[in-house]
């Protein structure tokens, strides 16, 4: 066995390169594009729904069709758009922020992506099948999701989520290990950038929250495909079990989405206020506390199920408690800006727009958490308004902030600031216009998930306004798309440190070389790069001499493995045994192949490094 497996660095075509890559920076780009694609799909679904609801008794999308739209919109947005976009940023930034050359499990990283991608594709393929898309809401409550009531769409939902959920779990473990084991010398936990911290915490949440979903999906799958009776009341089943399992997962899931966004803001706001983050330690603590509490509140989605006043009260109190750590964060951001020098870059605009929008959504969350009030709010448009405020005003704004902020690091080009600001303003206005009126709609008696409403219930005006808002968001998205295309066509080249950044990722070239850091940096405190800059250094102090760098080899196996499970899923849905066997064979076979063949990787030698002269 030779240690000199020479440089597998031949030029390959781009497609093959991306299919086989195990480089976290490229995987980030894969996540980014897949996530954006599904964001567009989910957005179009949203706009179609809003068109149907624009006027009373409209008949554009009626009954099942509308239910399919809303199910696919919710599912796509949460699982196939927001999650991968979060993972895109994590992949792009975390290894760079902690001064690592790579993630802990490059191979698994790629596997995680492909599992997600095939899962998402699977679910979306349902549109083109005779059974149609799932029509059960993103929460897929039993027994509506049982074969007695709905067709193969529900199977697509179950299997698609199962696949992509496995991918997410793998991703979570990868990031946990990466952050625990791969930090550069001096990068103690209490010096980690906040985005890394929040990502670390959500990875732990993923670890604990996804298995209940997995189990729930298995039970549902067994009920649907193999005649089990978990949710079949006539055979002794219990429909509430699904609700518990789903929300034990579902509630932490919303924090899995929002915490990384919080992390992004904690990077963006200090950078563009030219000030270190106010109350760093309490920020970290608030993050862990939110994560801790997030497992104790799932019943607030089930206040009307009839669990009794004792359970309701207690989960109410536990839920409202989350306002405290969240409030700590909000005020810390405000006081980061206090006394700073605030620059209105596009990235920062998103962060600034986030603060009032999210707080607005957060406080309606607290209102929802009061059971007597929730008896009115629950399953009404008030809830829809709440979660779009936190999700759009929090998660989506966070993703955009992160994207405008790290785009130069990811692609080496700068997005156009003018278009960026236009994108922001259209989105901001459209967003408030679309969702603020939905609060009133809910209180005025409009249930959610209805494909229409009757005339003469005074619901017309606000629905109309809401739809206009959604259309404006659509225009905003088109502006964003133009910006991206323009940047690819003739983007401004980005310097290594375009924003006068504070953390390690800005100390290396944009885009970074495949090995990230030529020499692992030595970290001397919070905002490591800022410290160096303040000491007059242009670069980080290295923690090791220049030496050979070991890199993992690319591999097509993750793709093939995921493809195998993807194929097998069709076998399950249509009860075709050979297809199941072939698919599982491919999947397990590539697992075996991976286990048998050790990846020795390759080395980049010192002379090459010097040649590149970075």
């Amino acid at each position, binding site marked *: 066995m030779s240690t000199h497996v020479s440089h597998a660095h031949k030029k390959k075509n781009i497609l093959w390169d991306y299919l086989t890559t195990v480089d976290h920076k490229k995987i980030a780009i894969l996540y980014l594009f897949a996530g954006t694609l599904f964001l567009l799909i989910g957005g179009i679904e949203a706009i179609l729904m809003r068109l149907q609801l624009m006027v009373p008794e409209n008949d554009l999308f009626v009954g099942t069709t509308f239910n399919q739209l809303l199910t696919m919109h919710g599912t796509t947005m949460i699982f196939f758009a927001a999650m991968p976009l979060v993972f895109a940023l994590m992949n792009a930034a975390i290894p760079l922020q902690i001064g690592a050359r790579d993630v802990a499990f490059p191979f698994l990283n790629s596997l995680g992506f492909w599992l997600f991608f095939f899962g998402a594709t699977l679910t979306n393929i349902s549109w083109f099948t005779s059974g149609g898309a799932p029509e059960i809401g993103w929460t897929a409550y039993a027994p509506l999701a049982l074969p007695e009531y709905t067709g193969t769409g529900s199977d697509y939902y179950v299997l698609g989520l199962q696949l992509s959920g496995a991918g997410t779990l793998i991703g979570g473990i990868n990031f946990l290990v990466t952050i625990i084991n791969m930090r550069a010398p001096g990068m103690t*936990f209490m010096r980690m950038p906040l985005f890394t911290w929040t990502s670390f915490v959500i990875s*732990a949440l993923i670890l*604990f929250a996804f298995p209940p979903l997995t189990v729930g999906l298995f039970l549902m799958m067994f009920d649907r495909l193999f005649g089990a009776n978990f949710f079949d009341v006539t055979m002794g089943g219990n429909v509430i079990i699904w609700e518990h399992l789903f929300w034990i997962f579902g509630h932490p899931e919303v924090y899995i989405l929002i915490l990384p966004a919080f992390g992004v803001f904690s990077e963006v706001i200090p950078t563009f206020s030219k000030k270190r983050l106010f109350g760093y330690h309490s920020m970290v*603590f608030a993050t862990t506390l939110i994560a801790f509490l997030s497992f104790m509140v799932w019943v607030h989605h089930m206040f009307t199920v009839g*669990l009794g006043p*004792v*359970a309701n009260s*207690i989960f109410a109190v536990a839920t409202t408690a989350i306002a405290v750590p969240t409030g700590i964060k909000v005020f810390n951001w405000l006081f980061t800006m206090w006394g700073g020098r605030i620059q209105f870059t596009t990235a920062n605009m998103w962060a600034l727009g986030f603060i009032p929008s999210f707080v607005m959504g957060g406080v309606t969350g607290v209102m929802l958490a009061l059971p007597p009030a929730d008896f009115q709010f629950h399953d009404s448009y008030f809830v829809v308004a709440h979660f779009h405020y936190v999700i759009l005003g929090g998660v989506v704004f966070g993703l955009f902030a992160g994207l405008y902020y790290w785009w130069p690091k990811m692609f080496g080009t700068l997005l156009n600031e003018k278009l960026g600001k236009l994108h922001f303003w259209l989105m901001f206005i459209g967003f408030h216009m679309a969702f603020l009126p939905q609060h009133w709609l809910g209180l005025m008696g409009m249930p959610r998930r209805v494909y229409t409403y009757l005339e003469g219930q005074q619901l017309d005006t606000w629905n109309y306004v809401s739809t206009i808002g959604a259309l404006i968001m659509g225009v905003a998205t088109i502006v964003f798309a133009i910006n991206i295309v323009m940047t690819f066509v003739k983007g401004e080249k980005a310097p290594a440190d375009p924003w006068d950044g504070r953390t390690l990722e800005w100390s290396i070239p944009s885009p970074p070389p495949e090995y990230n850091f030529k020499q692992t940096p030595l970290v001397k405190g919070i905002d490591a790069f800022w410290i160096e800059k*303040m000491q007059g250094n242009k670069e980080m102090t290295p923690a090791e001499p220049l030496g050979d760098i070991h890199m993992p080899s690319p591999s097509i196996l993750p793709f093939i493995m995921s493809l195998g499970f993807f194929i097998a899923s069709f076998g399950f849905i249509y009860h075709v045994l050979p297809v199941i066997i072939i698919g599982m064979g491919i999947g397990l076979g590539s697992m075996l192949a991976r286990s048998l063949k050790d990846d020795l990787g390759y080395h980049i030698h010192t002379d090459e490094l010097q040649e590149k002269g970075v």
Partner: protein
Amino acid sequence: MLARLQLFGFNELWNPILIVITVVLAIAYLVITGPMRHRFTDAGPVPIYKKVLFLFGLLLFYITLGPLNLIGHLMFSAHMTKQALLYLVMPPFIFLGSPEWFYKPFLKVEPLKKVVRVLTHPFASVAFFNVLFSLYHLPIVLDFIMTNYALYNLYHDILLISAFMMWWPFFCPIPELNRVSELKKLALIFANSVLLTPACALIIFAGEPMYATYTDPVVWSQALSLCLPFSSTLDVSGFGGPQLFALFPPLQDQQLGGVIMKIMQEIVNGTVLGIIFFQWIRSERARENKLASDNRMVISPATGQNEV
């Protein structure tokens, strides 16, 4: 209900023997941390707040094993309150209240040290306590244990010991034995919360009263007579059933019990999370300062980086 408690005598309700034990323990503590301190090596003075913590722990000890123990046989929610206080709240207070030097002599004894080491293996002890605790609350197990004197005492002693073992890694009084990193402690707290959830959830969401001890008059009075202090001669068979004392209907009482357990545990774990976290910050600061002075990596005051 409180008035009905008069049916029990002073002896049954207040358990004088336990008072004596508690007082003796308190005096012993005060003597050891006070006049007898100098018998111990490296024995620094014990600050007042520590003494208060310890004595509060002892107070909890008495309340839970005394009056609450009795009421806990009448009402499930009181039973859960007792357990939460005894296993989740009391041990941290005892640990926080006892000075480091107090343990040292014991742990000098090599075999003892080994035993402690094994018993307090962080993940194992957390798992052990939670499993033991969850098992206890399975209806059959609880009903069985509650009506069996020897078993009852044995199980509770083991639970109490395992609770101390579980808390040890978090509050380990002796730095040398502290082998768990702060990150792991955080993970342990998470694991702790997760592990207890199924038991609580099953109790909270059960659709009907599950424990014969709190619903069936025969089992009830059997269990009750066992829990009376052994100096008691009260005959409870004439009391009728649990309904006599109940504040709530059995189902709500049971739910409340589960909820109390859950909420107490959340508060305790949340607090401990905070304590660990701020210890962590402090130790990192200390390390940073030490590094700074060792390596002369002084951070320039111009940047204001390390302003506190």
